[in-house]
């Protein structure tokens, strides 16, 4: 019960943040619950542009070489353009990567793959778990650029792989194997739904801490640089003045 209340409060908080234009730390970004990697959208836009250009070019050539298009032809071209754009906007459907890919794939692609995999799982998850899954996706978004400078076989990389490559799919897989009618029935005082949500929350929390740990080096670097400037210039000026 308190789970649901928490979830409700969380949702209300996010709604407030959206309205006020701010952003809740760890909450979904305003405008759009689901996001895909920017490269996916770009690839699709390019495909659509190519298709539209091809159709128009074909129409011009037909009009010049074979026969004038006429009103019906122009209408047909317009229809074709629309149809192609619509079709390419949804096709080919993104396929969620298999859990094996998460376990063995490139560490830098891991956040994007995991987000896609989570998107694919969303239908099977209970509502509160979807909220947490969204937050995990959000965390992964933040984490993604941090991985650029990460050694692929360092301890942090191993930890991330273990967390989102192994534990996360295992948790969701374990939940999915529980027959649906049993999922909301309490066992030993807890429902599988609640177990899933708690597990996901821990993963989300751990991802947040990982982000903090990875950022610690950069934060230290920044603080050190600032302190150095102080030591060299501000303290130096004081020293000369006094």
């Amino acid at each position, binding site marked *: 019960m*308190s789970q649901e209340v928490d979830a409700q409060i969380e949702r209300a908080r996010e709604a407030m943040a959206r309205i006020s234009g701010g952003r809740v730390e760890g909450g979904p970004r305003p405008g759009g619950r689901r996001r895909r990697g920017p490269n996916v959208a770009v690839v699709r836009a390019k495909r659509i542009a190519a298709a539209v250009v091809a159709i128009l070019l074909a129409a011009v050539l037909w009009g010049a070489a074979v026969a004038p298009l006429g009103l019906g032809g122009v209408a047909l071209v317009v229809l074709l353009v629309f149809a192609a754009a619509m079709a390419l906007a949804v096709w080919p459907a993104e396929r969620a990567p298999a859990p094996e890919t998460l376990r063995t794939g490139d560490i830098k692609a891991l956040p994007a793959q995991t987000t896609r995999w989570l998107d694919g799982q969303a239908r099977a998850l209970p509502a509160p778990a979807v909220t947490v899954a969204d937050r995990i996706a959000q965390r992964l978004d933040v984490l993604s650029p941090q991985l650029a400078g990460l050694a692929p076989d360092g301890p942090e990389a191993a930890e991330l792989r273990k967390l989102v490559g192994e534990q996360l799919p295992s948790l969701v897989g374990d939940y999915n194997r529980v027959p649906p009618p049993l999922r909301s029935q309490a066992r030993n005082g807890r429902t599988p739904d609640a177990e899933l949500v708690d597990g996901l929350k821990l993963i989300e929390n751990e991802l947040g801490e990982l982000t903090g740990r990875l950022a610690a080096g950069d934060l*230290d670097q920044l*603080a*050190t*640089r*600032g*302190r*150095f400037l102080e030591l060299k210039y501000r303290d*130096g000026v004081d020293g000369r003045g006094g």
Partner: protein
Amino acid sequence: MATQTDTITAPATEDAPALTLTPPAPVPVVQAEKAAGLVPVDGATKSKLEEKVDGFVADLVAQDVNSPEFGRRVDAITAMGSKEIRDAAGQSNRFLDRPVRAMDKDTGVGADLAKLRRVIEDLDPGRQGSLTAPKKLFGIIPFGNKMRDYFDSYKSSQTHISSILKSLSSGKDELLMDNAAIDTERANLWASMGRLEQMIHLSKVMDQRLEDKANELDHTDPAKAKAVRESALFYTRQRTQDLLTQMAVTVQGYLALDLVKKNNVELVKGVDRASTTTVAALRTAVTVAQALTNQKLVLDQITALNTTTANIIDSTGKLLKDNTARIHEQAASSAIPVETLQRAFQNIYDTMDAIDTFKLKALDSMKATVGTLSTEVEKSRGYIARAEGASQGGRLEGPAAEPFKLEAL
């Protein structure tokens, strides 16, 4: 920098007050029992922690001792502070690394000072034999002027000296950067110690409350009192010890970082002084050359360095501006201008000797500190391993989904 003035205006009379670089004393072993209490925990936080403990103990005692719920709460005690210990331990490698690197003397500033010393020794008027004696070809025929040749050697050395001075100044920047990094690390360690301190307080209060509770239960429910003593209280005491051990190591690392920082500050002083005395000696040489041989010794490189590095090498620019007039006067009127130059060189040697002595003593302090620190870090590793093991099962939540994590605020 009145020192320089004195030295140059009254060259033959007294030594410049020696540059004293004080090596800091080695960091002693911090006893675990005395480690707590260094970082203050404010009253509000304390009372919040105590509330947390009271709630936890009440909750624990309400459970059946044989139930898994009781076990889960005991697990929470076992895992108590493991995050804080892990955080603090994560930094221990880094603070061991620093003093070790600081001891590596053949790099940066040390190497530059050695180079500078070699060049200066070549120019030392004391090593040139009698400069005033006439130079003779085959020892018989008067030929050339020894003094003139000597001052000419400055021209060929100036590029070398100015490059050494430049690299000394960037070495000084490195030392400052090192100190800035130490400040950041110390700030992080201070925060870690604050959290450890909170956990130590929590753990000690837990000990007290559990003890009281067990005594109270002795009359009503002896079995429960026994369970509380044997599991909850036992683990609480173990955790207190772990936390104190980690605290001791962290405090020691914190102090060791301060030692490295102080060493760096002294070295920066030394580098400043070495640069200043060198430039002063060259300036003196220019003036003396003018007085003795009517030779215009133009040291472009050094002059350029003066103007561009006046801000980098502390006080050099100011000192030289103040003194130029006096050196002129001194060298022109003095009967013994070569001694003036000799004195200027002696200043450089004194500075370098002071730095060398300092480095030797500092090295001893550093070695002693690293020795004790590594022993303590090694000791605490065992505790950390235990903390790691405990944290595997520690992050459980009760059936009410109310986490009873015991952690710092």
